[in-house]
């Protein structure tokens, strides 16, 4: 056996096992899903081709549109809430503004280890009529009948969920930014400090520009993560009451596994992928512009 042949065989032996599992379970089903999305199928018999009908139905359904709105709010809370707050916390830790930074860091990052299902049930208890918030409000207002009505409001029911998402994920962004801030060469900041730059100037002119790339990458995670939000909301409200807190992933799940509309469900999942890719391309366009501005 020649050497280059041995190299070639070794290469495939290393790469093929993983690749086969990956292609069989992810790439092939994506293609399968795309073709199913043009059909109507109940899970038995053969699928009937119906062209774009599923997609037309999706965008005409008010439940879907409300779910889409909820998803976009989740994207907004992560891009304009979790990311800036996470960055601010990382900056304060990096510049050692507070003492015992390691302790705060450990505490704020902790929710990441807890399963979304546990987080959901825990916060349901906190919001419940025998939970922390209601008990405190009842004691403070001397109104023993107080309950949280926010869940009954079609447009506001998603707000407590947004808060829990903020609680869960801000620490993750803090950790990511903190690790990347530590990679900066300290001499740059020291030199700026000697030149009399204020903390605010260093933040705006040195730290922020050097982090644009990292922020853009995390924003990509935030967007794709927000669009697939499922576990937490499924366990917290299941999308209810009356679809008020439904998101696209739950909409897909219910249509597929409750009503057995496999073709329709596939079309919804394709919409999720297209939305994610579209938002990410938009983001890369914007962050490219910002990066050029700083250069």
């Amino acid at each position, binding site marked *: 056996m020649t050497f280059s042949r*041995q*190299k070639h065989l*070794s*290469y495939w*032996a*290393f790469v093929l096992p*993983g*690749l086969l599992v*990956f*292609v*069989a*379970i*992810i*790439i092939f*089903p994506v293609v*399968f*899903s795309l073709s*199913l999305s043009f059909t109507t199928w109940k899970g038995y018999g053969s699928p009937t081709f119906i062209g774009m009908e599923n997609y037309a139905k999706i965008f005409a359904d008010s439940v879907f549109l409300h779910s889409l709105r909820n998803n976009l709010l989740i994207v907004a809370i992560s891009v304009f809430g979790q990311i800036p707050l996470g960055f601010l*916390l990382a900056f304060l830790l990096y510049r050692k*503004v*507070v003492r015992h930074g390691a*302790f*705060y860091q*450990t*505490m*704020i990052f902790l*929710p*990441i*280890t*807890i*399963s979304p*299902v*546990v987080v959901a*049930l*825990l*916060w*349901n*208890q*906190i919001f419940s009529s*025998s939970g*922390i918030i209601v008990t405190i409000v009842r004691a403070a207002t001397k109104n023993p009948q107080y309950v949280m009505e926010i869940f009954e409001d079609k447009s506001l029911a998603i707000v407590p969920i947004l808060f829990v998402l903020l609680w869960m994920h801000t620490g993750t962004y803090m*950790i*990511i930014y903190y*690790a*990347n801030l530590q990679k900066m060469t300290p001499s740059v900041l020291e030199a700026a400090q000697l030149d009399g730059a204020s*903390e605010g100037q260093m933040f705006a002119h040195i730290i922020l520009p050097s982090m644009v*790339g990292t922020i853009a*990458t995390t924003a990509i*995670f935030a967007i794709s993560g927000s669009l*697939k939000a499922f*576990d937490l909301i499924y366990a917290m409200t299941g999308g209810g009451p009356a679809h008020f807190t439904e998101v696209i992933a739950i909409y897909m*799940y219910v249509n*597929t*596994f409750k009503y057995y509309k*496999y073709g329709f469900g*596939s079309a919804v*999942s394709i919409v*999720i*992928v297209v939305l994610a890719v579209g938002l*990410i391309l938009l983001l890369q366009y914007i962050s490219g512009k910002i990066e050029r501005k700083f250069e």
Partner: protein
Amino acid sequence: MKRYSTVGKVLSYLLMISFTVLTVVPLVWMILSAFKPHAEIVRHPLMPPLSWYFDNFVLAWTQGHLGIYFLNSIFYSVVATVVTVLLALSGGYALSKFFYRSGKFIYMLYTLGLLITVHSVIVPLFIMETRLGISNTRLGVVLPYIAFGLPFQVFLSTTYIKGIPDSIQESAIIDGANYFQIFWRIIIPVATPIISTMFIYTFLGNWNEFILVLTLTSELSIRSLPVGINSFAGGMSRDYGLQFAALVIGTVPMIIFYLIFRDKIAQGFAAGATKE
């Protein structure tokens, strides 16, 4: 040296402390409530337990079948994590040190996989597994765990192994070593730091996974802890004490895991967003 105004410092502490309080208070409340019977939780929600009531844990563990779920969680997490990390390492080695043209394409395919969510494949996956007869089996759960773990782990291992100098491999080849020996005796030992990060990060994801087990299994005997805990939410029991006990059982092992491996977990998350 005074770099910050007093107002700035006060605001900074306020921010740090409020985030910390928001983490600690719910968890402490959860643990304390788990030691109270249902009636006491409803009547005095904020009080610490009058006496330490352990029955919640016993009942949750037996009635909720948490023992089975716990063992299944361990099985899925350990098996899927070990296989994922091994496959990702061998793949990462092939993609970073063999310089074949197909490697670039395969790497791109994996990168694409980072964007694909569980939801976009769950319908066909469910159909495929039913047809193949592996739905409702442990294999049917482990395989998707591996597939969804791979893209990010391949990314981590490829970038790390790329940083190992080529000269080490070349001199080993001159000494007569074959590629498998190089992989086991050189690449794996040198890559230990990233391997532990990969292990812990993958384990965490597998341990908390919910939707795959929920859809691909229906038999109690092969479901995992998140699904088991979720069943405490609705129909099964309106007993808050049991629910809190189940939450504690699901949370405390992970908090201990976190306190031990905090730095490694942080590295896993940070590595994902590093711009090359």
